[in-house]
């Protein structure tokens, strides 16, 4: 982690701020087995019905399942719908 990252982490801890806003790391919300929302993503890497890979700061988020669809994608937010089995942050 670089210097600004460490500063952001300290600031977020001190002021009790949401870390994904301060540190620019992905924020992943999973709703049951049907929906995954990734905020602060770094673009779509791969898109297949059984696997969707989303870029993130310092790695990637892999979503595995069946009939996967990128329901919505904007610059900041990416929502995946389908029968989700596994979400991996690498």
């Amino acid at each position, binding site marked *: 982690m670089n210097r600004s990252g460490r500063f952001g982490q300290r600031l977020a801890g001190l002021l009790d701020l949401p870390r994904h806003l301060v540190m620019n790391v992905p924020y992943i919300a999973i709703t049951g087995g049907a929906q995954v929302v990734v905020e602060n993503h770094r*673009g*779509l890497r791969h*898109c297949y*019905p059984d696997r969707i890979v989303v870029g993130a700061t310092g790695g990637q988020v892999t979503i595995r399942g069946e009939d996967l*669809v*990128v329901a919505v994608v*904007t610059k900041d937010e990416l929502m995946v719908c389908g029968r989700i089995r596994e979400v991996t942050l690498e």
Partner: protein
Amino acid sequence: MLTLRLWYYVTGYLEIRIHGPGLEEFVNCALARGLFLWRVRRDGDTLLARVGLGAFPQLWPLAKKTSCRLRLAGKYGLPFVWRHLRRRRLLPVAAMGVAIAIFVFTRFIWLVEVTGAKQVSPYRVLEVAAGLGLQPGVPRHMLDLKDIEHRLVLDVPGISWAKVRLQGIRAIIDIVEKVQPPLPYQPVGPGDIVASRDGIVSKLLVLAGEPAVREGQTVTAGQLLIRGVLGGHGIGYGQARGQVKARVWYQAYCEVPYRQLITNRTGRSWVREVVAWLDREIIWKGREEVPFEEYEVFTNRRTLPSWRNIRAPVELITYTYYELQWIEVQISPEEALQRARENAEASVRGRLPPGAEPGELVIEVIAGSQTVGVRATLAAVEEIGSFRPAGPP
């Protein structure tokens, strides 16, 4: 999200098919430009995505940059629906025509119904209503409901109240029928009044005919009380009318033994559980015969909670069989007398016909070595006259 989709439906959106080596790169470039994509999915070697109508021209340079080719896969939203409708000019006209037809036809009454008619014929009510203008095919605004209601009550015999309700294309005539008081029994033809039971005549009122008995006289059942003659001197045979009240007696006897056999639970019980489905019962537990000779059954029904008037058609019924045994008990003479007296009195009072005026009650006790008996005698004043039509001459 819904608002956004609704907005894109109103402004129109396209489904595009992206071919080429850098499909994901194309999507990322579009995002970097601030474009909004949705329903991005893989279809073979291509990627399908949806974009707003305004964003589509901006995608061409991106496609060129990422060596992709774009194909239009579908057009959706109101602008395309509108364009489709503009091409089919007759469709909106037909839709408008149907709407106008529905509007016009609902201005008329097409069904007339009658509710509340039990004695009165509903066809008669409909007939009169049709005569007053309330019939299928009549415009709603031409109906004077108050006048029709008023005239219905006057014109249809047997109606005391009428109300006409208009529900869409239906006219419902609610009626309330007149309640006729029951007619007193009027025997027809000549005949006499005879005694229906034994007694002593206490009151004699002759309205027509000639009295055959006098007050204070003892009469027996079937005896002539008022003779049906006309003119008072046997000029002709007519219909006797009058009131004959007599003092009559009713008796009841009840015997109670001092030693009585009563049933008592032994403490043993046996349970059978049954699942009731509609009218059928399926034995869940306790399929064999009831193991007691003498028993009484206690039934407990458990149903699912009902909601409004909806009830589950299944219930669990538990039959608990309690074994009984006969035991002999000794009761005191006073208690036996009391029971016998109560039973005899209740029995004799229950035999009085309606309208009879009960008089004094005489209790006679007959005590034996094993039992005590009570005879209750109740005097009453009641109407004993009954009409007997005259036989053929």
